[in-house]
């Protein structure tokens, strides 16, 4: 690379986003060229200044999100007349562009096809200019209306109205749950990985139901519930979805703010009642009154415990998000009752090897026997040879 292309890369050398090759080239140039070295220093100083200034900018106002949400709400629930007004305005703006085009088309058309025009045919075959203009204007008007309607299309909202209020700048308690159905290569392995996913995010597996196949052809499947801290919910959903092929995935968010507020208020009341009753108990009075107060105190305490339990459960559902995970094997695993083809071939091979071994052993054993009986065999052969020689030696003479 020459000086200019390398010099162009200096800002990205300073922000550390160059490739290794580019970086090496820039470093070599900076070492060689004093001007480039100075410029790197200047750019680094400029970057530091800009970062410092950036950090000193105060954040946006707290109500910005509420404003944005309110605007979305407004647009989605805007009455139809607003759409019509917008459509008509959009139509007018199109007309501004359309008018000169239409005029040009009319003039050229008239010049070419009009009476006495360059390409004029019989008069009856040519559309009158008014008709042509009318058609063109209609088509512009239609497309403008359609275009204007598009932003007004209402999106389908699938959540349970969480954070629906446009003035929602206050703290909201949102309980989020998710469900993922996955097809995996190995359910056993996927269960272990899901456990790790939960553990790495400070969560845990809250339930597991592992269904191993009972008959050939059945698939191994498992259902588990994973609980993770609410702030890690998104990343847990993504990590779990990556364990296999996603068949279905859903997220549900429930705004439990009013429920939490209600439970808190009821719990405060119940505690106040409990305190008042305890104070009555401490006073001197009739035995009947004390017994009645004691009975009511027991009821109040029971109510406090119930409400405290419900509130804790509600708060836990906000703090911890749950994800229902369904895992299914991609293919049924071979069972012991039905060996696979490869297993059968393996068995056959092993049997053949065993058979060859036995046969070789038998041959070698037979050879040993033969060697051991050699003297007898040799004697028998000599006797046979002698006998044959005797009879064979007499034979030819008798013939002669």
């Amino acid at each position, binding site marked *: 690379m020459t000086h200019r292309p390398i010099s162009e890369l200096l*800002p990205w050398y300073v922000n550390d986003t160059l490739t290794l090759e580019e970086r090496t080239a820039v470093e070599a140039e900076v070492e060689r060229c004093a001007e480039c070295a100075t410029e790197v220093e200047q*750019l680094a100083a400029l970057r530091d200044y*800009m970062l410092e200034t950036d950090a000193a900018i105060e954040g*946006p106002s707290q109500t*910005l*999100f509420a404003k944005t949400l309110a605007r*979305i709400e407004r647009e989605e629930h805007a009455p139809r007349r607003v759409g019509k007004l917008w459509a008509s305005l959009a139509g007018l703006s199109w007309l501004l562009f359309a008018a000169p085009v239409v005029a040009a088309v009319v003039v050229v058309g008239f010049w070419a096809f009009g009476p006495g025009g360059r390409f004029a045919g019989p008069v009856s075959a040519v559309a009158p200019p008014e008709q042509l203009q009318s058609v063109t204007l209609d088509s512009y008007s239609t497309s403008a209306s359609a275009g204007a309607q598009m932003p007004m299309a209402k999106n*389908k909202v*699938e959540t349970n109205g969480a954070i629906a209020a446009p003035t929602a700048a206050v703290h909201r308690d949102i309980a*989020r749950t998710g469900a993922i159905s996955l097809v995996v290569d190995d359910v056993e392995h996927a269960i272990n990985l899901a456990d790790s996913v939960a553990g790495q995010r400070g969560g845990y597996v809250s339930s597991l139901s592992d269904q191993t196949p009972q008959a050939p052809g059945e698939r191994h499947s498992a259902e588990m519930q994973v609980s993770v801290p609410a702030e890690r919910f998104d990343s847990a959903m993504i990590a779990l979805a990556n364990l296999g092929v996603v068949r279905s995935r859903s997220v549900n968010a429930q705004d439990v703010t009013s429920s939490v507020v209600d439970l808190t208020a009821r719990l405060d009341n119940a505690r106040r009642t409990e305190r008042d009753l305890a104070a009555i108990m401490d006073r001197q009075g009739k035995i009947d009154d004390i017994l009645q107060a004691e009975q009511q105190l027991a009821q109040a305490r029971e109510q406090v415990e119930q409400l405290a339990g419900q509130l804790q459960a509600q708060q836990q559902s906000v703090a911890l998000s749950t994800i229902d995970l369904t895992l299914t094997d991609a293919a049924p695993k071979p069972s012991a009752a039905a060996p696979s083809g490869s297993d059968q071939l393996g068995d056959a091979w092993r049997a053949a090897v065993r058979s060859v071994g036995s046969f070789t052993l038998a041959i070698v054993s037979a050879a040993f026997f033969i060697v051991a009986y050699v003297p007898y065999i040799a004697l028998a052969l000599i006797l046979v040879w002698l006998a044959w020689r005797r009879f064979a030696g007499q034979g030819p003479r008798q013939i002669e």
Partner: protein
Amino acid sequence: MEAQHSDEDSRFLIAQIARGDRVAFERLFRAFEVRLYRYLMAMLHARELAEELVNDVMVEVWRGAPKFRNESKPSTWLYGIAYHKAIDALRKRKPAAAELRTIAAVPDPRPNPEESAVATDLRSDLDAALRSLSPEHRAVVELALTQGYSYQQISEIAGCPVNTVKTRMFHARRHLREYFLRTGARGEAS
């Protein structure tokens, strides 16, 4: 509060937003609102306008989420929308209004009043030099040096070829150098 989101998280949130999930929308909003606001403040130097444009950007994200195709990084997509809105706003705005900027009060750790005065002058000079850049040149400088984007990412954000990005940066640097030479400012830092 701005949460740290990975690109994967943002992709997931955008997919959920495409299905109308407002909780996912709030999460994405919280993840980007401060970054986008500061970027737009650096470009526009006007608090209300910057907030209005963050609002515009996020409404466009809500509308455009179903069309997001995962071909670019989510942050590049968001900054792309912000970039074009900022450029449009700057082109529409009268030049005089551009000067109405409250310079951020950057705390200076050095106790010496003389050094402090020199540093303040230098900051003002740098600020004025940056403000004298054209919107496109300023955007490239901001995206590279403050936001830390590579030239390929800036080309995606600005919707122009990589060579255009390099050329804009080259001219921006030359303009800053010339500004300091012309004004005779204490331009050692640029």
